[in-house]
């Protein structure tokens, strides 16, 4: 029995805003990056659900591209965390004032 698309939209929305809350409320950059991954996954779930509802392949293809870009984003973000930590010995994003001029 197929699940109604509204269920997927609701699940995806809740997951996305949990990720938003993580980015806004946490100060640990690693957990912020993981919250961003959560948001990527919420978007992917929606892509997949709509691809299934319309029987169109494009949604799956773009979900694949989102996974690839998420991998690149995670690598860059973690590199920034590592290099910042190397300079400042600190990972509290409120304390980092490298870009503040």
């Amino acid at each position, binding site marked *: 029995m197929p699940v109604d698309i509204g269920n997927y939209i609701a699940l995806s929305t809740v997951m996305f805003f949990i990720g938003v809350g993580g980015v806004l409320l946490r100060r640990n950059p690693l957990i912020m990056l993981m919250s961003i991954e959560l948001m990527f996954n919420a978007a992917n779930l929606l892509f997949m659900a709509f691809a299934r509802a319309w029987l169109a392949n494009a949604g799956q293809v773009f*979900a694949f591209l989102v996974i690839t870009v*998420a991998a690149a984003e995670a690598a860059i973000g973690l590199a920034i965390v590592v290099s910042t930590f190397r300079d400042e010995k600190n990972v509290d994003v409120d304390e980092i004032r490298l870009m503040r001029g």
Partner: protein
Amino acid sequence: MIAFWILGAIAIVSAMWTVTAKKPVYSVIALLVNFAALAVLYVTLSAEFLAVMQIIVYSGAILVLFVFVIALLSSGVAPFSAGPNRMPKAVAPAIAIVLAALGFVVYATLGTRIAPSGRAPAAATLGPVGTAGVFGSVADFGKALFTTHLLPFEITALILMVAVIGVVLLAGDRVPYVPTRRRANEVERSAREAILRGGE
């Protein structure tokens, strides 16, 4: 339908755990649970290839990267493992309630009107997952990726290359090791001078 509710509950609970966990390692574990639940959901949505990619790329590559960075950073400094946390204890349930309300509102307003109105392409057929020729099969997906959506695919290759160069520039050695004869001579001379200085 039952599978959807179970998997959705697992996904939401593990997402909450990811965001609220004190230590980043627990966040990684929760995120792994979340990704696994989503992979199973993808199978139920007849996206078999994406389910496998979810496990391999997300759980296999990205989360291992996170674990590596946690291990790398927390080896030198103890407080990092705990991690700073701005979230007060009372905020988490409030956020959960708000999220539940939000999801319900989205479901109530969009739930019924958004289904496709009989415009499904004639070529796409549904069938058991893993069968050739049905919607979402690997052959279908590959053909779409390499013909219709070739340009985004190529742009993704460019993005990945830029990411690799950026990571090497950001996190690589500040002074790259250059194995030349001149450099070796410099190192040898400075070592000799240090020994002489020590002897004085």
